[in-house]
């Protein structure tokens, strides 16, 4: 399935365009490299041929390079847009514009919403305008509705999508829904979810075990995908909030030899030692602080800070899969800081950590020599709500921060100025 996405032609096209661009020196900024070099004060970044060719305090502009004075403005890697439907949802309430959920009423781990990814989607444009460069496009789950089939608790394969027009990367993880969200997909019991998942894994390991009298859970392709996920130790993202459910999932994963990532994790702070011991990261929404369900009674704004202090790897994603306002994720990161998370850990949770978790660290999430240019210049602290993205490079090339929203703004700004907005 990944061969389709190797996208050699498309990648070369992008690289060629970027390579043709003249060298650019971003001079005298605060560069948050998200690499071993950390944050560099009074530093510059030299971009050439679509790549970062130098980072540091004493970088000179080569002949013919364009110099952009930063005057101390921050530079960060392009941000992560979280886990959700960027590029497969245009208008949430309009069913024909949504491709994120497969409702065949069957377990189809081989489902890849990335095949429907639309780089021209307005939410993609709007997110890019706020400095977001990549996101994890993950399938969603829905129950039976009005007689139509629902999806499966094994939702399908998730892929990193670049927001610069390039195609999605090969699938990076399998998305599975456990906890109370899974109940309507598992016979109305969260315990049923483990039962079905264990049976599916058994079927993938040993197709013959499903005899002719058993109803098979998977297609042949689905068995291959599940088998490969286990064999290759590809991350399995499980949506869970309740502390007891996280413990159960950790035990299940140890038994089945799955490499887990917990998504949601409103009560993850309560099982931080177990998560740390198992080396399981948590992708959480720092805004969770109310018991939206009985799985989230322990939700607190200090979740991120407590997990980080306990040594658990954390990344951030908004809870909603809706793609329109994923730009709120950097605000959420700032809120985690206001509630005790060290600032560098908050920036890492929306740059380098998710890039590495989803196997895109060579391209996203850090500013390092030799890497494709994927970075943003900010008007101020990138986690501050009053800061704006001012310049951005993605996939090696400079990208526009214009969107349909800025076009609407410009049209009506004129009318308001003229007093004719009526």
């Amino acid at each position, binding site marked *: 399935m990944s061969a389709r996405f190797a996208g050699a032609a498309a990648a070369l096209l992008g690289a060629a365009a970027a390579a043709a661009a003249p060298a650019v020196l971003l001079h005298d900024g605060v560069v948050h490299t998200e690499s071993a070099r950390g944050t560099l004060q009074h530093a510059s970044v030299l971009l050439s041929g679509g790549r970062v060719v130098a980072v540091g305090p004493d970088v000179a502009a080569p002949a013919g390079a364009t110099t952009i004075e930063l005057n101390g403005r921050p530079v960060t890697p392009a941000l992560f847009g979280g886990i959700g439907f960027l590029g497969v949802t*245009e*208008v*949430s*309430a*309009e069913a024909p514009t949504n491709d994120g959920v497969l409702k065949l009423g069957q377990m189809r781990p081989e489902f890849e919403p990335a095949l429907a990814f639309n780089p021209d989607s*307005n*939410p993609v444009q*709007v997110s890019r305008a706020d400095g977001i460069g990549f996101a994890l496009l993950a399938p969603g789950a829905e129950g039976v509705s009005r007689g139509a089939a629902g999806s499966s608790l094994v939702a399908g394969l998730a892929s990193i999508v670049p927001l610069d027009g390039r195609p999605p990367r090969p699938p990076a993880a399998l998305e599975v829904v456990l906890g109370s969200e899974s109940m309507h997909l598992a016979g109305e019991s969260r315990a049923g979810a483990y039962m079905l998942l264990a049976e599916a894994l058994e079927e993938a390991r040993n197709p013959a075990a499903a005899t002719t009298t058993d109803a098979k859970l998977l297609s042949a392709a689905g068995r291959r995908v599940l088998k490969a996920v286990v064999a290759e130790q590809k991350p399995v993202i499980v949506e869970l909030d*309740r*502390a*007891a459910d996280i*413990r159960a999932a950790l035990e299940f994963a140890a038994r089945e030899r799955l490499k887990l990532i917990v998504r949601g994790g409103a*009560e993850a702070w*309560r*099982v931080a030692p177990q998560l740390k011991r198992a080396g399981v990261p948590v992708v959480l929404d720092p*805004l969770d*602080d*109310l*018991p*939206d*369900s*009985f799985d*989230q*009674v*322990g939700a*607190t704004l200090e979740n991120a800070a407590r997990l980080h202090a306990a040594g658990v790897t954390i990344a951030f994603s908004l809870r909603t899969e*809706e*793609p*329109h*306002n994923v*730009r*709120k994720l950097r*605000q959420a990161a*700032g*809120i985690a*800081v*206001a509630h005790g998370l060290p600032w560098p850990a908050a920036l890492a949770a929306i740059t380098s950590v998710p890039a590495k978790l989803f196997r895109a660290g060579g391209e996203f999430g850090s500013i390092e020599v030799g890497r494709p240019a994927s970075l943003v210049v900010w008007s101020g602290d990138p*986690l*501050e*709500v*009053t*800061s*704006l993205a001012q310049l951005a490079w993605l996939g090696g090339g400079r990208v526009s921060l214009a969107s349909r*929203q*800025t076009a*609407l*703004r410009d049209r*009506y*700004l004129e*009318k*308001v*100025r003229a*007093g*004719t*907005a*009526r």
Partner: protein
Amino acid sequence: MIGTRTAALLRPLAIGSALLGAPGAEASSPWQDPYPSTYQAQTAAPVLIRGATVLTGTGARVDRGDVLIVEGKVAAVGHDLEVPAGARIVDAHDRWVTPGIIDIHSHLGVYPSPSTNGNNDGNEATSPNTANVWAEHSVWPQDPGFFTALAGGVTTLEILPGSANLFGGRSVILKNVPAVTYQAMKFPGAPQGLKMACGENPKRVYGSRNMAPSTRMGDVAGYRAAWSEAEEYLRDWRAYDAKLKAGGKAAEDAKPPKRDLKLDTLAAVLKGDIAIQMHCYRADEMATMLDMSREFGFRIAAFHHAVEAYKISNLLAERGVCAAMWADWWGFKMESNDGIEENIPLVDAAPGGCAIVHSDSEEGIQRLNQEAAKAIARGRAIGLELPPERAIRWLTANPAHALGIESRTGTLEPGKMADVVLWNRDPFSVYALADEVYIDGVLQYDRAHPPATPRSDFMLGQPASTGAP
């Protein structure tokens, strides 16, 4: 931009004495709320907050200013204020003070946390016209969201029914104080509003049941039919009142019209005692509603979720109607597809414009200051001057105005309710936290001294909220 309509809004709700079953001259009998407020502020010692950056909500800013609270009221804002006997003194150097935040659009209590079927009480989606329902009868005071909103500086909030119906029902204005009953939260003497909804929601809910409305023209036909009926109802009651007033045989023979609770609400709107709080996204639909308000003679206080208000900001300002908006929500349905982040500043920029930041969310209500901050940044980027003393009105004085409570709260003018927030820094920041929140001069939230037990009964004794399993 704040007009002079408050006096009218604060008038007792004289729906017609006869309508409420108490014969007598209509104008002379003030409306008696059958579910009256039992809220009474506790008494508290005077408080002197010293040396803060004070945004008064009137558009003024006082640097290194003092705020004095006496007997639950703002007594003075200025410099070097005298310390009254027994006053608690709060050193607020490097901190900021604002009026308490007012959220004009909340469903706390009616769509509480946890979101269970048992407590899902926000939308009486059984008829396109449920003008007879009152949101307050659905409010669950134990919603944990009230406390998290308080931690965000929210002192007053309007709880509305949902938007499934053309006429959703009456709203209630609450003070964000701990209580067992909603009456003990009810803002004393505040007017009610009527929630109405434009656009997609009513036509989706009823259209999918093969009922009217199923189109936007069906929405409008539904409103007009109801207003027309309300006019007739009001005429009948006025005729009845006239007969009573005439005395003699006419009064003896007078038979009161049958009371109708839906029409009671609509008649109160036509008489100007209840203002409309109108869920309406699209510019063209807001313009339709403005025409309709002239056709039938009622007042729209604010368009809520006014995602396209920027397209008609001059029209809204000229008609004296506020727009209550999010900073950046958009795209979840067609009528929100043209949302832009400059919406709030563009409404504010029209001469006389009344911009309000609202939440419609148990998350958003916790940080309306940050929602405003995002709008400030977008406004400044297009060249608008938006000092904090101007922007703070979007979440204080302007919603107070649209709710008809601006003579009571929403600014730090002397004599007003001492609904006050002390912030750890400039509130228009992601790092800003409310240190202290006062409601009627009573310290209801103190970040340094969190309550030993949760305010909500639901959260009380929950193992998950207290520590390791």
